[in-house]
């Protein structure tokens, strides 16, 4: 499948900014089932861009821009060719052992209630079966929240609600898997099965099964990511692989507008 992606992030500032430094995680890598045919990052001001790889193996870009800036637009676009994979990852760049992804973070630390849920939903299953069961159980339990995720929401608080965003579903998935001693990580990327949602970068999860490797799970869709998904970055939680981590020097407020278009052929 050929997916073309257009991802525009626009910051507007109420007061001009002196300097902006951002760490962008917006560039997909090649895997066995994902080939990046074309990829561009363009910025609407005089900015210097530097390519890196972070400790998780993600491709990152440092952006340095001098002010005064009252807006900043980052336009990412490209084409990625994907193939059918049954959700099993092959040929990803993996600098870290899976056991690193057993650790929790402040927002993905499953409390008693969530860990109890994970345990009940997966009793008697093999690790692979448990991951599939979790994926279904989370999908069934929550109505999809099509709004913007709430910054810093913990998995325990998310679990107490009736609706959940794709980010929270994926974070609950990784928290549950880790509580069962299964390495799991958060994945950001794009997906063309938007189902009427406000288009944003998508979030799902990977779980590790000994003997098979990393396998993708998308609790928003209750299936394993297939050729409709383009992987960008992985980390311990959503904040760790957010498309933009930024810092600005200047007063005032910022207003963020994100526009994503993914179309498959």
């Amino acid at each position, binding site marked *: 499948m050929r997916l073309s992606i257009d991802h525009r992030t626009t910051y507007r500032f109420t007061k001009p900014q002196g300097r902006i430094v951002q760490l962008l995680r917006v560039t997909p890598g090649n895997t066995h089932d994902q080939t990046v045919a074309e990829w561009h990052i363009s910025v609407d001001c005089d900015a210097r861009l*530097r390519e890196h790889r972070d400790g998780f193996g993600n491709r990152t870009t440092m952006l340095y821009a001098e002010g005064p800036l009252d807006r900043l637009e980052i336009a990412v676009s490209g084409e990625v060719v994907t193939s059918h994979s049954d959700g099993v990852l092959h040929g990803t760049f993996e600098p870290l052992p899976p*056991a690193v992804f057993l650790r929790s973070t402040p927002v993905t630390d499953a409390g008693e209630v969530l860990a109890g849920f994970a345990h009940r939903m997966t009793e008697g299953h093999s690790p692979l079966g448990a991951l599939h069961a979790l994926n279904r159980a989370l999908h069934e339990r929550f109505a999809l929240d099509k709004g913007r995720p709430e910054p810093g929401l913990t998995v325990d608080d998310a679990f107490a609600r009736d609706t959940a965003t794709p980010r929270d579903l994926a974070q609950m998935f990784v928290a549950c898997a880790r509580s069962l001693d299964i390495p799991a990580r958060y994945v950001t990327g794009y997906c063309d099965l938007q189902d009427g949602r406000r288009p944003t970068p998508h979030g799902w999860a990977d779980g590790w099964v000994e003997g098979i490797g990393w396998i993708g799970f998308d609790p928003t869709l209750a299936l394993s990511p297939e050729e409709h998904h383009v992987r960008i970055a992985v980390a311990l939680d959503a904040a760790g692989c957010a498309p933009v981590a930024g810092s600005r020097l200047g007063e005032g407020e910022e207003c963020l507008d994100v526009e994503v278009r993914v179309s498959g052929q």
Partner: protein
Amino acid sequence: MGTQAFDEIMGAGGQDGARPELADLCRWLDETPPDELRRRQHSAETTFRQLGITFAVYGESEASERIIPFDIVPRIFLADEWERLSAGLIQRVEAINAFLVDIYGERRILKEGVLPADLILGNPQFRPEVAGIRPPHDVWAHICGIDLVRTGPDEFFVLEDNARTPSGVSYMLENREAMVRLCPELFAKFRVAAVDSYPDMLLETMKSVAPRGCGQNPNCVVLTPGHYNSAYYEHSFLADSMGIELVEAADLVVDDDVVFMRTIAGRVKVDVIYRRVDDDFLDPLVFRPDSMLGVPGLIAAYAAGNVAILNAPGNGIADDKAIYSYMPEIVKFYSGGAPTLPNVETYRCREPDALRYVLDHLDELVVKLVDGSGGYGMLVGPTASRAEIERFRAALIAEPHRYIAQPTLALSTVPTLVEQGVAPRHVDFRPFLLTGSRGVQVVPGGLTRVALREGSLVVNSSQGGGTKDSFVLLPEHARGGGMTQAMGGMTQTIGGGLA
């Protein structure tokens, strides 16, 4: 217990007179009236107060600033003792560096099963954010302070490795200056190795690890969290004595993966940063996003090989208390030989058998939090109250993996000036080691901390400990006339030099 302790001046016997090499110190103590010693000590402390060498006591409701009490009686290492100790220290620091290179690189030590992988990979001190980065010249632990205790002439045990941002070196330097000024006669009796070249050694170390291509004179700075930090005096003191800039995060900018310092004359490129800021507060884009102390883009500049950071981010995994108990295996793995400097025997409470033993012997053991420091969250069994022991018992049962326990050692004592005169008090020792691109150097001196309360084994400054000067004697065959002290000045130099 205190009665069996080895006294570093008097030897094991106690009453039978001093160790022969140190008889001169005994004579000095006998000849100098306690009131005179007290007057000198008071004078030193007045100077420290004027200089502002204070520290903030954590956990007190009002942020109080205190000076650490200074004791006028020095502690002395004989030349051959020091030589043997140094070899062990160098071996340990080389192993720490090799461990860090490996753990953030190939992870051979995990693949070969020498350490349990979960202990490293699940440890918050292992920072995946810096995995794969190679610091300039592959040096990670540039400045180490290794905390030691002693139980006999050549019996040293490592209590703790400090491979992040060990502090205390300013006390080593200021204590020596005070001693040279107040007790010049001691420097005539003993040929003491100078420590005042420490700032030069540190600057040399910094320059040696500058990224390639920085030229002959790389730009080095000291990065401090600011004057609210308890060690701010030391940060400014070191920057000052090295003749380099003391900067805060707001003074640094990163552009195009290069670090610059803002100056009135515009931006100046920075090549080497001696940071006294914790990892969490280095770069808000990579570590804590809420950090106001960090420099956005610093880790990118570091990963690009454009700046050296001392000590390297991620070092906490090497001096973590949970890793400590495996240090003998780590040293053996990388050095290929047996460790010269042993650890204190350590019970890992994460292991059920060890936990059972610890719970049965709480009144004999020292119990420590693996993620605590500064003497907080510590139980000293033999001197603890019933209630304290029971509080720790409950904590241990609830979260055993957070604790280790060690036997209480008969820590060595050194004569110390107390209210009743001169009496033995327990001490520990923190020597400093510098690692640059040309290898490891031991600074001939260090920070001696002394537990001023009779019988006490807790030397932490936050818990009523004091400091002493630590003399390292030069070997007999050292050329030259030994020490020449600059008269009336604030410096001391070695006349001649080491053979």
